[in-house]
């Protein structure tokens, strides 16, 4: 399974890579939005994980989702929000703008992995 993880925090990107790789996934890391857009063009993906806060002066995860929505070839690719924004109401607003699933940090990998496992089935 090819998974893109958009994350500016290098440690978090690295540990996600390690966790998902263990689960037989092929993980691509993008540090920001423009890198992510390059990756989606080049790689055949099954899932995209997006951090919301991508750093100073950078397009954020929500803007990036907007860009993905305009790409036909991503039409059937699920996009999950993986973010440290975890105040009451945060989940709803990210789901509302179009993320397929929401995972707060610190990430509960049991839940994430089970969600990933359903993708292949459907």
């Amino acid at each position, binding site marked *: 399974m090819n998974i893109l993880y958009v994350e500016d925090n290098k440690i978090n990107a690295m*540990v*996600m890579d390690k966790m998902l790789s263990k689960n037989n996934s092929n993980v691509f890391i993008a540090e920001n939005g423009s890198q992510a857009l390059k990756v989606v063009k080049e790689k055949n993906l099954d899932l995209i994980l997006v951090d919301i806060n991508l750093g*100073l002066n950078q397009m954020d995860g929500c803007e990036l989702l907007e860009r993905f929505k305009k790409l036909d070839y991503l039409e059937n690719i699920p996009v999950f929000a993986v973010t440290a924004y975890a*105040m009451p109401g945060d989940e709803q607003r990210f789901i509302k703008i179009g993320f397929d699933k929401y995972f707060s940090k610190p990430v509960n990998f049991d839940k994430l992995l089970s969600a990933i496992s359903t993708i292949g089935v459907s």
Partner: protein
Amino acid sequence: MAFSLEQFGILTEKTLLFLFIMTKDGQIIESNKRCKILLPSENQEIKGRYITDFIIDEDVHIFTRTISELSEQNPIVNESFTFPLSRMGVLSLKFDFTLHNDLIYVSGVDTTEEYKEHRALVTISKLTKTGAWYFNPITKEMYWTKGCYLIKDLDPDTPMTRDLGASFYPEESRARVENYLNTLIKEKEPYEYTEKIITHKGNEKWVKVVAQPVIFRNEVVYVNGTIADVTERHNYVEKLKHNERIKHLALKGIQSGLFDYNIEQNKVFYSLDYKRMLGLPSDQEYLSKKDFRAMIHPDDLDAATKRKEDNFKNKEQHYYNHYRLRDKKGNYRYYEVHGFRIKNEKGETVRLIGNLIDVHQRKLNEKTIQENKKRLRAMVNNGMDHTILLNTKGEILMADKASVETIKQDYDRDPTSETTLFIDVIPLNFKPVFLHAFNEALKGNTMKREFERITQLGSNQWLETKYIPIFDEGTKVNSVLITFLDITEEKHAELAIRQAHIKEQELSDLKSNILSNLSHEIRTPLNGIMTISKLLQFEESPEEREKLIGYLQESQDRLLDTLTTLSNFSELESIQKNLDYALIDINYLVETSFREHRHIATTKNLDYSLVLDESIPKAIIDKNLFKTALDNIIHNAIKYTNQGSVQVKIKRSKKNIYIYVIDTGIGIDEKSFQKIFDPFVQESIGLSRKYEGTGIGLSLSKRYIEILGGKIKVKSELGKGTEFKILIPNRL
């Protein structure tokens, strides 16, 4: 002296006296030849007739009274009587009546000339240039005394006719004048008029003519007239009219009457208008001083007398007085007297000629106006904080005391004594508001405006102004009332409530922002820590474990940083209460902070430099607060600069000390400036909250500098760098 009948006969023929003997009831028993003149024709017999048959109507009762006064105890009386003559006009005889043996002996002296003179004087008391004239309506004979000729600049020997007399009047008034005389003959009523004449020499003069009928057997047998040259007086009255337009005699509804007070003789002549005005009988020639004084309102008498006496002492010719006079019905009305005095060589006033003007209505109007003015004044002074009445030109008609004082102080003008445009005496920022509202009020609209002004004490004052158009009887605006109400307290209360509300909102937003930011900032490293812990459980390679433990340390540091910022924030409120202000050397303080960050900058291989100000800039600040703020900014500059330089520079101007922190880092886009500094105004739940990580520190710096009375400004270009400028007021 008594005569026998014989003696009487002889003597009587040689005398110029008119002699009669009559019974006590006036029947003539005997008369001398001179008496025949009284008969209409020579053939008639005078004997047996009654003397009252010959006397003019007016004198009949005088005769009766005179005869009745005769008695044994009072045998001699004298009295004058007038007889109409068919040819010569009138004959005036002064009779001595002597009672003797029940018969009355009468001797009369011809006093016609004196009589005529007397009538002239009676009619008009010694006006400067007068003449008497007589007209016999039956024979159409006209007689002029010398005075008449003088007035008309005509040779006194010229024979006079009615037509010639009338020819001196200009064409436009001639018919009118003729008509007066015709009416008098027909109606037997006296008349008087003032008209213009053109004299023989072509001079223009004004004459006053008074005429009275002499009535005999209910017919006008004779017209007695006087003429007076009143040019001087007329001109004076004209001048009076001209000079005192307001008191113009011709003003509608104002009644006036002329009087001529001869002080030497203590007699006053009143014109018919005058008599009519005061309800005096028209045949009353004079009014004594005593009687006149009795008409004056007792409350006004002393003041009027004093005014008169004061005026007589003056050099001015003009005479002015005022008082209330009682009319026949006992009602008092207000009158004004305007006149002029004529003086003799010694400078004593001998005559006073003038006009009595009924100013009752005007006085009442003035009184009403005065009362209304007082009411308005009361409103003006008590109702509002300021009240000003303007006319349509924008000039101040009336203003309350406080406003007058303010205008006097601020603009050195006294609106009560000089015409003052309101716009000239108001603050600059009020002018456009005023102009607009005033113009609307002139159109008839009531306007309400609020405006803020700075008082003399330097505090802000909020005024609610109302513009109220005042209409005349119609729909025309004739003035605008402007009221000012101090609503500063209400405004402050309103502002305080609003600010409290905003503050509450801000506080709530701040809390939710801080909480949200902190949560994010804690969860991010915690994600690393927790995931790494999990990975460590399964990782067997020592190299990988080493790497993971390094990452764990980094995440823990970041978590600790966040918690330190949190404690700074919680201190924010208490900080303000515990500030320790002191005079601080800025160069030294900045250098300390600069030095403390050197090692990070060196690690990143940055060109890290400091430029101090050459003078020793000092400011009164809390050094801990200032340093915390500066530390944050320098820390951020280094953090976001990966190559190039970070420069710290101190520069002093007259007023301020500036500290620049200039980096060649990633920069900030313009949209984000506000967000960087002020999480308080950020929408509580924005979709994009990129800068939270740095936002807390910088917004703290901004708050700290502001608490110290300074400012932070930022200039930045994306990808090129950022310049922070801290401004602190210079205290030395």
